[in-house]
């Protein structure tokens, strides 16, 4: 069963990260890398990326056959997605266990992926 773990945090949290002293930032990155490494070794990681901030986002709208392009994310929210991992595990409990140990931020949304081969 495949899930996507979406790593999110508040805008404030994001800013706090940017202001972190070098050593602390390095330690935080180290923890995130280790999380990815451990779960990769256990065969649970299919893929994943860290995303640049919402200020770098561009949104493409499709409406009535017309396409328009705007600056910014599609939803202005207090929480922003900072990255994601695609994981392959047995069930939701295993995915939740992974999310519980995530060291990189305060929120993880866990979503099952639609299996197009089954239907």
């Amino acid at each position, binding site marked *: 069963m495949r899930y996507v773990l979406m790593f999110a945090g508040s805008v404030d949290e994001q800013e706090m990260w940017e202001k972190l002293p070098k050593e602390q930032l390095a330690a935080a990155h180290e923890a995130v890398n280790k999380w990815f490494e451990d779960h990769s070794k256990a065969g649970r990681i299919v893929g994943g990326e860290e995303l640049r901030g919402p200020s770098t986002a561009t949104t493409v709208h499709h409406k009535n056959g017309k396409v328009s392009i705007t600056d910014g994310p599609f939803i202005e929210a207090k929480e922003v997605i900072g990255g994601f991992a695609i994981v392959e595990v047995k069930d*939701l*409990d295993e995915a939740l266990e992974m999310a519980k140990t995530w060291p990189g931020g305060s929120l993880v949304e866990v979503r099952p992926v639609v299996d197009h081969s089954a239907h």
Partner: protein
Amino acid sequence: MARRKPRRGASGGGSLGALRDSTAATDAAVVAVFREEAGRLTGALVRLLGDFDLAEEVVQDSIVAALEKWPVQGVPDKPGAWLMTTAKRRAIDLLRRDQRHQEKIALLERSTLPAEAAEADDRLRLIFTCCHPALAQEAQVALTLRAVAGFTTPEIAAAFLVSEATMAQRIVRAKRKIVDAHIPYRVPQGDRLAGRLDAVLSVLYLMFNEGYLSRGAQVAVRRDLAEDALWLARLVSGLMPDQAEVIGLLALMKLNLARSRARFDESGEMVLLPDQDRNLWDHVAIAEGIELLDKAGAMRASGPYQLQAAIAALHSESKSWEETDWHQIVLLYDALLRLSDSPVVRLNRAVALSHFAGPEIALGEVNDLAIALGDYHLFHSTRAELLDRLGEPALAREARLRALELCQNPAERSLLERKLAR
């Protein structure tokens, strides 16, 4: 005690109303069958088919069919087997719609559910699935009642005072999530168990309180949620005999239910603990509750339900309100606060403290909870009681009026109104 008649067809319509005319004795027997068979059957089917949604649906269909047919044809000799056959047929019908399900149909046709599949763990797995923290708690409660205790959707809707459509949607959504998000059908093991068991126990306790607190004249026809919660707690404690807190919860429920005959007077008005006629308490049930509590205590794994049961036991053992061992009760509340600090526990502690250290000190502690409990009617009614004792009738009245504004429960409202009218 007046016999309560289980309510069916709460909406007044449809086939569920058919049983209304049957005798209370038959009703009780039918409820017992549903309780005993629904979870067993659903559990076995989930394991066999690997499809929670389908399994739960066909068992529910068989219950609804039974509610239609049994009042007319009589309850069959082997009601469990009847439900099983009906559920199985229904499952085969549904599966036939899809060619890819040949294998499952073959499995079903060969099986002799749940006799062969009477794995003790099946119902426990089912309970843990229904009470999975990935589901909203209100959905956990509804699913547990339906899948494990054999409630129908209208019965659950009536118990929680929401429309049938709302309740049906809540259940459909939760079941879809179980299937789509792959919520496992499993009893969690190792260090994951404690947290998940807490979730199960809080669902059962919520269910119990919903039934217990709303007991009164106006709910005389409801399928008894408190009794069903007690039944579920007994089931879980039978399946997990080494869990002290499960026994603690069972003891707590038993001790509370033992007082229920004294909780309402002849005209259906609520009577609070200080004014209850203690001769009306069920002293056999109290003895059983205390025995359970001792059994849990011997396991040396204390927890909030055992502590609450111990408080209930002290009340139950006391000859009168005045002779209650308030000091011991305050100590138990302190222990409870150390486990989990909550403003409601603090409020209850303050009531005990008022009889031990006086109403003035207690009022100070209650006032400290104003921010946390400002919207809670019992905060204001507790203040009112303390203010009365301190000779402040005007302030007491003000607090009681505020409590009345916030209180939903008809029996509690009526009690407040009576006190205001004095």
